[in-house]
């Protein structure tokens, strides 16, 4: 059991008067891989967006424990939070139209040090520094045209995940990673994720509708409905839970 990574206190978010997320107290990251399930509209993606500050919360506090020490990230900007190590992959395919696969990875691996308007001669150094890492990613995940652009929707989804991994996050939020990803790639992604959590102490929170995957990879599962975390427990416990069966599986999981 790992140290906790994120502590959410009394966080709420509503859109047009409808409360979408309302969480009194939630601790994330005590296990390597945690799953977050719940029916559509339960507020899972919104909760993730509140943690990464893509969305502004109405009130509440998010505390982050990067190396054991306490850090209030409630009012930090999205890019700051990402630099601190909390990164989210996207449910809907996102890409940079003009960046190739390598460019995308170079963008992730580059730091502010290189991204200054007068540093127009630092490309060679950045490429040297990141050569091995990029080769490792492109060797593990096969793209149709590794020197070109991500072609299919599946490749774009995969690239999105690799871009996030390249940032070496301490806490990775994955929003429906398998949606649009071919099965063999899903297996590869999940194998890599398990390794990262064991070897590098990374914590992962996965939102997913593919419940078999959730039961397989998560050590702890949260069940969310109507903006609240109703139950948390091991996959076994959640599977047998009556509330989950009624509110989720019986209704929207066929």
């Amino acid at each position: 059991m790992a140290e906790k990574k994120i502590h959410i206190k009394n966080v709420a978010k509503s859109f047009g008067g409808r409360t979408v997320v309302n969480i009194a107290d939630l601790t994330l990251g005590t296990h390597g891989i945690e799953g977050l399930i719940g029916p559509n509209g339960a507020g899972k993606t919104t909760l993730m967006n509140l943690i990464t500050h893509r969305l502004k919360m109405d009130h509440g506090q998010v505390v982050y424990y990067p190396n054991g020490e306490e850090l209030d990230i409630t009012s930090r900007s999205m890019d700051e939070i990402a630099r601190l190590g909390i990164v989210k992959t996207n449910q809907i395919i996102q890409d940079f139209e003009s960046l190739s696969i390598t460019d995308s990875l170079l963008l992730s691996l580059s730091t502010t040090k290189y991204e200054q308007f007068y540093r127009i001669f630092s490309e060679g150094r950045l490429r040297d520094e990141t050569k091995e890492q990029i080769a490792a990613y492109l060797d593990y995940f096969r793209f149709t045209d590794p020197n070109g652009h991500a072609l299919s929707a599946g490749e774009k989804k995969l690239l999105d995940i690799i871009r996030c991994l390249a940032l070496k996050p301490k806490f990775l939020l994955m929003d429906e990673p398998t949606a649009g990803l071919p099965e063999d790639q899903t297996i590869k992604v999940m194998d890599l994720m398990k390794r990262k959590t064991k070897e590098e102490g990374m914590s992962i929170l996965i939102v997913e509708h593919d419940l078999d995957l959730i039961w397989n990879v998560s050590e702890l599962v949260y069940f969310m409905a109507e903006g609240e975390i109703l139950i948390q427990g091991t996959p076994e416990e959640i599977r047998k839970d009556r509330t989950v069966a009624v509110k989720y599986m019986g209704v929207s999981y066929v």
Partner: protein
Amino acid sequence: MVQFLSGYVMYTFSSIVVYIALATLLHLQFGVTGIVNFGVVGFFGLGMYAFGVFLIQYHIPYIIAMLLATVLTGVVALGLGRVILQLDSQSILVATLAIATVVEDLATSEKWLTKGVIGLGTVPFPFDLGPYSQVAYFLLALVLTILIVIYAYRVESSPYGRLLLSIRDNEPLAQSLGKSTSRQKLFFFAITSALMGLFGTLHASNVHFLVPRMVSPGVTFTVWIALILGGRKKVLGGLIGTLATIGLFDFVIETFVPIPASAQSQLMPVIKLWIYGLALMLVLMYRPSGILGEKKL
């Protein structure tokens, strides 16, 4: 020889070089970073007038006046950018157009400072080399423009350029990867706008007498047409586009095509606009990414 190196030909060449720099800076702002700056002349004109005022009204030494005007333009761009750069493209377009109009209006109305439509002058050439003053000035403008083009070329294959492209393509995604996109965009906008101001100060030496007509929206339109014609995403798009528009008209046609004097002032500007418009339409229809851009699929 000296005859050729001074006067009309040098004047035209210097103007073309300045326009190439403006179009290349617009390429960096719009083509690379996606900032729709429709007030090019605002920054260009601010630099030009600020320089003229510093030099003539306050007798500040030439080079210091130039630097001050450039910095002032950058500061104005920084202030404006802070307010508008996070808005959508249409708002940025309107706001930059508005700032350009403000500059033109102030140049006209603040007669105590700018001498209004009577004109502010005389701005001398930067170097007093007798008959070679003008050619020396031209070479200075040329060198600075070449530096801008080289910068644009280098930045394209640098980590910084990649960041700018990622902002143009998908700013929220870039931000989610830890890039402080709004700060970077603001800073880049301020620097490139300040450089537009620098070329404004240079242009002041070329025209000698500053009148508000010189900072009319026509400058912005010319630079935009040149960049779109040449290819907004290409480093040399601004250069090719400028040569194909002002280069062709203000130099090649006016110098080598015998046009009756009566048509020169009345008909030519109309024909010029007519052909610019036609060329723009043809390019947008058959080669939307410009002469240098890839063909329509």
